[in-house]
């Protein structure tokens, strides 16, 4: 799974993140106070303006002091009742219809059907739930103003904070219930779509590859091969071994259990349901570094000229290597050895025989003594996930007396090689005793073919610890949608506290779109986007100018660029308050790619969500508190 911006551990992240948040909130609060104060001065004069500003602060203190969760709950209950009576359940019906017919358009023969199905359900759910949240949050409060029901609310001892938070919680609660219903339907849909079995007939489907008596052959010798019958758009290769056992080989990222049943003279094969189609792998990631041909440590490897610099490369048939250092590797965690999974990028400088894959080697290495064992030599195909297993006991034939130490600096004096004689001489080496030091171990990867390259980023190789519960992980995947929904609801309620329903809805929708394209938005705000800022881009559109060409050196061009610089300042401030909705796709990506969603990511995203919800709630409160509920 590609992790361009890996989620840092919570305690590393929270400090700088909190500081950024405080700065952003302080900047936006100062701006809001300044604008409000200027408006009060203009409308009420200096004396009244200052008095009104003081009243706002004093009222806020009173409202905070006498905030009641009971009243807030009553407001939330009202929002829930309103949603139910206005038949929001229709959204669930739409979702069910999409699931019923969506299956028709999903390719059953896909190479990764689990990913296809989960992506489909997550995307559908995201769109529907966010649209629902948009409508409910943006229209509810303006409707109260329009129908004047707000009169009977604000003349009760309800505080503006309770109205705003009640709306957020009420709409959030109804959205949560709908999301859970959709999650249940989605899980049923995905599991029923992936559920299948195959038929295999002994005489028709299996071809015996040897005439020898199987009992005279080693038990793991393949005696027959064949394919199952087509089901769900694919077949599996089946191998029968000399000891009579059978194995269904992996196809479309799953396999099946197979059992031979003998009934008199008849032999039948019973193939079980798909196994491993949905997974919740728990990866343990390490830190990556690169060793160049001279033995020096580098943060990055070779740039093979690809624009996307996510991965870095090492050359084949040299001493170059990609090194992952893992921590907290204990026998308790990995009792059966180290299960390594990797997705390596292969860059060919010449095609050679296109049918042939590129050879690579995997090593496990003691980070202190330099004891190294070449555990696997493998064929690598581009972007396919390869699973290799480093056993607990490693035969001495695999251990290389090559103390491949990595130099820390370019200073040759610091290069220290561990003497070969100091390495323990054993018949078999134990991974945890001989290669792991204080829980640390290194995994090295080399490309063995000359003039070919292996490329990787840190998340491309990991140790796979015990898998998590698939269903629970699937449900956790909806946390991403839930958090997006809460942020969107908070924006919707804020806008609805001072805008009319349609305008609030459009504004919230604008936040949604801008939030999904935050990177582009910030590029525009920082004048880094191709084609310049808003005015310059418009100029290019009108004059049909290419984005790469410099505009003519005229007064109007300079004027436009000056406006763009001013606009960039405003856009940068807005950018601070803009949530990056696409970050929350991490959850769906994890589930679709078969990875467990780590608790750390959930906590980081939850805190991020709250960092938006809380200031938006406060802003909504301030606006509503200082708004006249009635009109002329």
């Amino acid at each position: 799974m590609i992790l361009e911006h890996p989620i840092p551990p919570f305690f590393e992240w929270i400090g700088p993140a909190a500081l950024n948040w405080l700065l952003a909130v302080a900047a936006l609060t100062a701006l809001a106070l300044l604008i409000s104060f200027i408006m009060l001065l203009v409308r009420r004069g200096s004396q009244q303006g200052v008095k009104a500003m003081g009243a706002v602060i004093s009222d806020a203190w009173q409202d905070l002091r006498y905030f009641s969760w009971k009243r807030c709950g009553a407001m939330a209950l009202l929002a829930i009742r309103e949603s139910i009576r206005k038949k929001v359940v229709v959204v669930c019906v739409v979702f069910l219809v999409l699931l019923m017919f969506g299956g028709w358009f999903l390719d059953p023969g896909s190479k990764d059907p689990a990913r296809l199905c989960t992506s489909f359900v997550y995307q559908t759910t995201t769109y529907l739930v966010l649209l629902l949240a948009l409508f409910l949050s943006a229209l509810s409060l303006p409707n109260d103003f329009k129908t004047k029901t707000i009169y009977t609310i604000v003349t009760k001892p309800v505080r503006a904070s309770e109205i705003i938070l009640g709306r957020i919680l009420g709409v959030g609660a109804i959205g949560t219930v709908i999301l859970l219903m959709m999650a249940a339907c989605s899980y049923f849909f995905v599991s029923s779509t992936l559920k299948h079995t195959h038929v295999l007939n002994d005489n028709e489907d299996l071809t015996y590859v040897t005439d020898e008596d199987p009992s005279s052959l080693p038990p793991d010798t393949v005696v027959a091969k064949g394919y199952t019958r087509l089901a769900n758009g694919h077949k599996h290769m089946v191998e029968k071994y000399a000891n009579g056992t059978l194995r269904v080989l992996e196809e479309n990222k799953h396999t099946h259990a197979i059992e031979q049943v003998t009934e008199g003279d008849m032999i039948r094969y019973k193939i079980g349901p798909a196994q491993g189609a949905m997974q919740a792998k728990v990866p343990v990631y390490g830190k990556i570094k690169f060793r160049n041909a001279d033995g020096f440590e580098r943060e990055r490897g070779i740039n093979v000229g690809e624009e996307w610099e996510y991965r870095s490369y090492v050359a084949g048939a040299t001493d170059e290597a990609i090194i992952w250092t893992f921590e907290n590797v204990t026998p308790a965690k990995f009792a059966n050895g180290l299960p390594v999974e990797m997705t390596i990028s292969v860059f060919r400088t010449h095609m050679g025989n296109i049918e042939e894959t590129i050879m690579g080697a995997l090593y496990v290495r003691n980070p202190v003594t330099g004891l190294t064992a070449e555990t696997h030599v493998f064929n690598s195909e581009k972007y396919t996930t390869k699973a290799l297993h480093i056993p607990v006991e490693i035969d001495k034939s695999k251990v290389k007396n090559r103390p491949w130490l990595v130099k820390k600096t370019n200073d040759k004096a610091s290069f220290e090689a561990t003497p070969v004689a100091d390495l323990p001489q054993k018949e078999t080496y134990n991974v945890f005793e001989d290669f792991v030091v204080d829980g640390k171990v290194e995994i090295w990867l080399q490309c063995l073919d000359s003039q070919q390259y292996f490329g990787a980023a840190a998340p491309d190789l990991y140790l796979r610890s015990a898998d998590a519960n698939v269903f629970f992980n699937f449900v956790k995947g909806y946390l991403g949608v839930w958090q997006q929904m809460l942020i969107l609801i908070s924006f919707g309620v804020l806008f609805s506290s001072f805008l009319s329903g349609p305008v609030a809805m459009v504004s919230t929708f604008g936040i949604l779109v801008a939030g999904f394209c935050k990177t582009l938005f910030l590029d525009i705000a920082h004048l880094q986007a191709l084609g310049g800022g808003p005015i310059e881009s418009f100029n290019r559109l009108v004059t049909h100018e290419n984005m790469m060409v410099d505009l003519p050196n005229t007064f109007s061009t300079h004027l436009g660029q000056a406006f763009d610089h001013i606009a960039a300042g405003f856009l940068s401030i807005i950018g601070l308050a803009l949530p990056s909705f696409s970050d929350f796709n991490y959850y769906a990506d994890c589930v679709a790619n078969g990875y467990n969603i780590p608790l750390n990511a959930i906590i980081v995203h939850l805190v991020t969500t709250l960092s938006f919800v809380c200031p938006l709630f406060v802003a909504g409160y301030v606006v509503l508190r200082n708004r006249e509920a009635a009109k002329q």
Partner: protein
Amino acid sequence: MGTEPDVIVEKTASDVTVEKTESDVIVETKNLTKTYRDFWGRQKVRALKALDLEIRRGEIFGLLGPNGSGKTTTIKLLLGLLFPTSGEVNILGRPATDVSKNERLGYLPEESYLYRFLNAEETLDFYGRLFKIPGAVRRQRVDQLINMVGLGSARKRQLREYSKGMTRRIGLAQALINDPDLILLDEPTSGLDPIGTRNMKDLILQLKEKGKTIIMSSHLLGDVQDVCDRVGILYQGELKELGRVEDLLKVVEQTELRVSGLSDDAKKKIEKIIEEDNSKLLFCGNPTTSLEDLFHDIIAESEARPGKRVRGGENAK
């Protein structure tokens, strides 16, 4: 969260709420002015001009005036629904923008602005929750109020199915859910049939008997005359008249006699006495009842004796 500044009240034997900490003036406005402005801050209408008003505990105060005179604006300012352009409003000893004043306040808007997707029970339960009334008390009060406004048979129906009169009644019930000390009624008889109007007026008088203070706005003079102790007459945002109803309505220079069974001789004698006093007899005849009273008499009589009603008059045979 802090404990809310609940008003200190003590119930007397007659169930009259007496406040220890406040003076008898329940509502006070000083130089209260409201100017409506457009989006750009330009003045549109000056709806209320320097209103000075004091309303005392236990009285029924009527705000009178034609449409657009500033009655509703005044009520909205008292409730804190609008902010004054200048001047001050104090209700129950607190500024109008102070939310805690609403603890002891009930408000019936001009039209019952209620959630139409709720039924009567849910509506009252919701408003009861906003006052943090405990569950058992709330249920009891909901039942009591639903029965009081005569909506027992429609308590489970959503308000969208209610007639205007029924909506007004449930609106009144929500205004009384907290057993308020001060009740603001904006056009309370609007949309009610004559029976409903009479019931509303009776209820207002009952509330007064319980020691409640009531402020009502109306342009129906008869209603105001029937129930109000004092009235203020607004015209184009200015208070034109303020005083007790009987004082305002008293025509000091005229005297009206109402006598039953007066003979023609006696009538002549009275006319003679008036002549001797150098006064002028303007009218002498049978007094007439109001149309409203007549209607209620007819209804009462019809309910007592169902069937075709026959009464004296030129059509009687």
